[in-house]
């Protein structure tokens, strides 16, 4: 199924009002609100016509202009062989997104990475710790307005 068909199917079967977004080039995606994310994700995984059993990638994104943070879920079904890009966006001052770790185990480390580098808090994650930077690192490096700290534990970081 294509993104449109999946959106249509979801709207028809579950009464949602999802709408795919198209860009000038590349993939299209659907945006869901964080309050229903887990529900949608569970449906996507378990519905027998969708069966997205593979979470290929989970990325945190900083949308600087809108003062928002976003998470992109790249889903794939090895059974039906179709893909879907799902996005969720949260305000910068309260970046809480429900965790999908219990649905796809692979999200565990991806979410930790998004937390570490972009600063999104995943509610319900079993151990949301920084993964690539040290635990006491300041700031989230992949934010567009990130400024590197001058020294870390009395060692100059070279700026």
């Amino acid at each position, binding site marked *: 199924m294509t993104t449109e068909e999946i959106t249509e199917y979801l709207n028809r079967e579950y009464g949602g009002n999802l709408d795919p977004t198209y*860009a*000038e*080039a*590349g*993939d299209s*995606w659907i945006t869901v609100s964080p309050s229903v994310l887990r529900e949608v994700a569970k449906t996507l995984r378990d519905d027998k016509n969708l069966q997205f*059993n*593979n*979470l*290929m*990638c989970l*990325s945190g*994104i*900083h949308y600087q202009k809108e003062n928002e943070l976003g998470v*992109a879920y*790249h889903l794939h079904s*090895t059974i039906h*062989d179709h893909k879907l*890009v799902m996005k969720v966006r949260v305000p910068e001052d309260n970046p809480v997104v429900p965790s999908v770790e219990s649905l*796809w*185990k*692979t999200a*565990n*480390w*991806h979410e930790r990475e998004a937390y570490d*580098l972009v600063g999104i808090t995943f509610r319900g994650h079993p151990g949301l710790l*920084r*993964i*690539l*930077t*040290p635990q006491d690192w300041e700031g989230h*490096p*992949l934010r567009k307005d990130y400024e590197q700290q001058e020294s870390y534990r009395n060692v100059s970081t070279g700026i």
Partner: protein
Amino acid sequence: MAPVTSPQPAAIENRTMTINMGPQHPSTHGVLRLEVTVDGEVVTKVKPDIGYLHRCFEKYAESLGDYAKVVPYTDRIDYVSALHQEMGYVIAVEKLLELEVPERVEYMRVILAELQRIASHLLGIGTFGLDLGAFTPFLYCFIERENILRILEKVSGARLLYNYLCVGGLMRDIPTDFTSDTWEFVTSFRPKIKELNDLLTTNSIFIDRTANIGVLPAEVALNYSASGPMLRGSGVSWDLRKNDPYSIYDRFEFNVPVGQGEMGTVGDCWDRYIVRVREMEESLKIIEQALDQMPGEGDVKEAVPRRIRSKEGEVYVRTETPRGELGYYIISEKSGPYRIKARTPSFVNLSILPAISKGALVADLVAIVGSIDIVLGGVDR
């Protein structure tokens, strides 16, 4: 008669010990640190600690502001299969920009990628043997890998980080004796696989050490989004070159070897190992077909854009590297790349380690880490 009660033994203090495996340890394949809790020699808990090799690839890629400039940095993600990292990236950008690539370039990319796959698997197999105490197969593998590196060096000028692919084409023309060199390698390498099998694959100690160890069931593998030999070792026939072909892989005939549990359970270390060995043979097949079909003439820089005109949009492109699915998620703006995320197979495959190493011995843990075949550059980016 009163029931006989056995005297209660004095309470034995049973403490677990936490040991640090790494960041400096002979078999962590780089700077991986495992916080291992052991009860005697039995591993009760493993906590991987990564990030020692974090080189801010994503931040760099964003700040460079030009798609062409990112290519050399992609090399450094997984330095053992640098060409695959480049290939994934240029394919993603080409998809974003809707660029058509000349035939000759496509064939060349496939041949190089398959050569690199063999080189990478040789390293993976060799170090796996080394982890189990077999030193000699490691060097045998390196001799063969050296032959590949010589070809790649002739082509690109570098041995490890090639920077040879570019958006829309190749950096420079193909040397004239490339085809003959590659043919020579292909014919000389076939018998060497048999030699390796004699020395390692069918060695009974090797089988004892790897069969039934670190079993990864197919459902768990899918739930963890494992890919590459890790997933195929669990018996799932999933290879992007077959199932979601990119470049020109749909033109070649080859098989996708999967783990069958020949020596133990499906999805054990031996299965993951044998998938790599058999994949090398399949790669040879692809190289042979590609060499036969490759057009002899053509400008490899024909489609390379003078200046890349960025488009607004985003792509997620995945390619099959020796370690599994490498995904590039590129969000593009008119001014250039806004966000580039590399979803590396090493990172995802390593996250499975705690799930499959519970109850193993310390020696098994080494075998399991070796069979996942991670490259820490890929894990930490």
